[in-house]
């Protein structure tokens, strides 16, 4: 298990390196560059050359890559090329907690809905309850998150005025304030996610409930609670966890869109502004962090596998 984890960890860093490198070169292939974006038509050839030299863009792409890479290994992600040239690390340090809070809250809400919904519809298969859950699941899946976000703002922020429509308050300024700002975007992102997971749990549970070992467990005369939580659910969750791992990545990309609707300056907004301005260092840094989140959420899924399934843990 330890050597497996070590291999996975090394693999994760290779993936992150590959993503960072790819993004580095792709950014430079995209038409338009930061100098043109900043000076527009105002600068003469001398000014352009001077600015390129200042930003280090006059050197060959490979030299630029070498410098960026060696800086990155030392923990230096560079600075924004705009305005007061804020360090990329600081921009990310500010944006990341917002995106992570949002995604994790969305994840929690989704699971709190999905697990009971999946269990109920599996144990009451083809009843009214099951059909109702399925109907809501399809509704949840069919609504685009940005649209749901707008509807939620209209209902809960504009009309009922229960919750703020935009913005973000850090957790240390009060848990309730933090929660009030995040609950609507979290629901907007989490709804589709919870629908997917509820459907997955339902079908996985149905298969498990028909298995031989469930019959053995019933033959022991166990209580319904022991059957569900001791025997059925741990097995049913094994395939679901894979989906959760993949879907968590979707959650982050959902956050990118929904952050814009709710004007939360998270990683998504940083990324989009960076791309529009050709702010190379910011985009590179943000992508690196996003890929780290992807890679490590998959790593956590692998760890959970081992935790739940002894066949993986012990082989």
């Amino acid at each position: 298990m330890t050597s497996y984890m070590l291999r996975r960890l090394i693999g994760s860093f290779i993936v992150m390196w590959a993503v960072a490198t790819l993004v580095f070169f792709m950014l430079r292939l995209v038409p338009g560059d930061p100098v043109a974006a900043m000076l527009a038509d105002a600068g003469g050839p001398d000014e352009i050359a001077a600015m390129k030299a200042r930003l280090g863009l006059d050197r060959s792409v490979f030299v630029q890559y070498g410098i960026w890479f060696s800086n990155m290994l030392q923990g230096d992600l560079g600075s924004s090329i705009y305005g007061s040239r804020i360090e990329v690390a600081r921009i990310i340090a500010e944006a990341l907690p917002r995106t992570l809070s949002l995604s994790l809250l969305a994840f929690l809400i989704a699971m709190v809905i999905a697990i009971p919904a999946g269990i109920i519809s599996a144990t009451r298969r083809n009843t009214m309850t099951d059909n109702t859950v399925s109907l809501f699941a399809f509704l949840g899946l069919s609504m685009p998150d940005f649209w749901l976000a707008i509807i939620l703002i209209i209902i809960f922020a504009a009309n009922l005025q229960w919750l703020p429509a935009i913005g973000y308050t850090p957790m240390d300024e009060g848990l309730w304030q933090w929660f009030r700002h995040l609950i609507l975007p979290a629901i907007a992102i989490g709804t589709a996610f919870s629908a997917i997971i509820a459907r997955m749990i339902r079908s996985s549970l149905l298969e498990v409930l028909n298995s031989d070992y469930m019959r053995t467990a019933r033959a022991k005369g166990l209580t319904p609670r022991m059957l569900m939580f001791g025997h059925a659910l741990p097995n049913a969750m094994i395939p679901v966890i894979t989906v959760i791992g993949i879907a968590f990545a979707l959650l982050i990309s959902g956050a990118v869109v929904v952050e814009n609707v709710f004007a939360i300056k998270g990683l998504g907004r940083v990324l989009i502004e960076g791309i529009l301005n050709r702010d190379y260092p910011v985009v590179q840094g943000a992508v690196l962090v996003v890929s780290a989140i992807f890679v490590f959420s998959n790593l956590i899924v692998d760890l959970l596998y081992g935790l739940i399934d002894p066949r993986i843990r012990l082989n």
Partner: protein
Amino acid sequence: MTLLNIKGLAIDVDRDGQTRRLVHDASFEVDRGETLAIVGESGSGKSLSALATMGLLAEGLSVSGGEILFDGRDIVQMDAQEVNDLRGNEIAMVFQEPMTSLNPVRSIEAQLTEGMRLKMGLNRRAAMARALELLNEVGISDPEERLRQYPHQLSGGMRQRVMIAIALSCEPKLILADEPTTALDVTIQAQILALTAKLCRDHDVGLVLITHNLGIVARYAQNVAVMYGGRVVEKASARDLYSGAKHPYTRGLLDSVPRLDLPRDTPLSPIPGAPPDPTEEISGCRFHPRCAKATEVCVTDIPQMRPAERHEVACWHPNLTAKTKTGAVA
């Protein structure tokens, strides 16, 4: 009072709004310390009868007639909670597929002790101690180590021994073993059967041994019920059945088993045709399409179980005083 007395059991399946009968008027009984073998091909209704006794019939299947008297109480009339109270501590079951019958994500300890902790109220330590005892009893070496392991680390024979330990764990009065050795290597089969039969005798447990293999019946069972197409067609003691089967189907089964004590050129006589689909409607005796002795009455009228020379047989033309082909006593 007989431990288990099944009278006129009927089991129906509901499929696409149609009701079909899978088990017709089945009766058998077994007492403590006694072994009853139920013999038949797949689809003969033998497993269904056992599952009905456990109250574990799959969705769509239901008991539509008869009584299942356990210690004098009718399981058919009990509500779900009452049946669940019987399961494990009064009636236990060993299933056919040891490879899939244990939960892959739970340790042997968890699966062996949970029943005892729930049904006998043992604490963890007492349940562990009893688990070790049970594993020893079913012939598993190094039981401390095994308790920590998971099903995938055990061989098929080993898993079936664990299943037997689970079945015995809450000191049931009755164990239903549904083809417990079919999925195992031949060398292991005999060990597991001998073990099951011995433990049931030692603990004064009634055993219902469901099998399609007549060969194993003679050694381990006192009484035999032969099922065909959802009906019990013949009942006798194992000795009587081997020395003189009355029903043509039972005779066919015995004649189609290869035997080493006959000359090598003795041809096997298999039963012609194939067993019927359990839901198929067949008039009269369900065996008549495959029976060499069938007459008009076999096609029109259902034969009832009647006593015949220490047997009970449901046949219009039972083989009275006849021996099996060679006259040998198995």
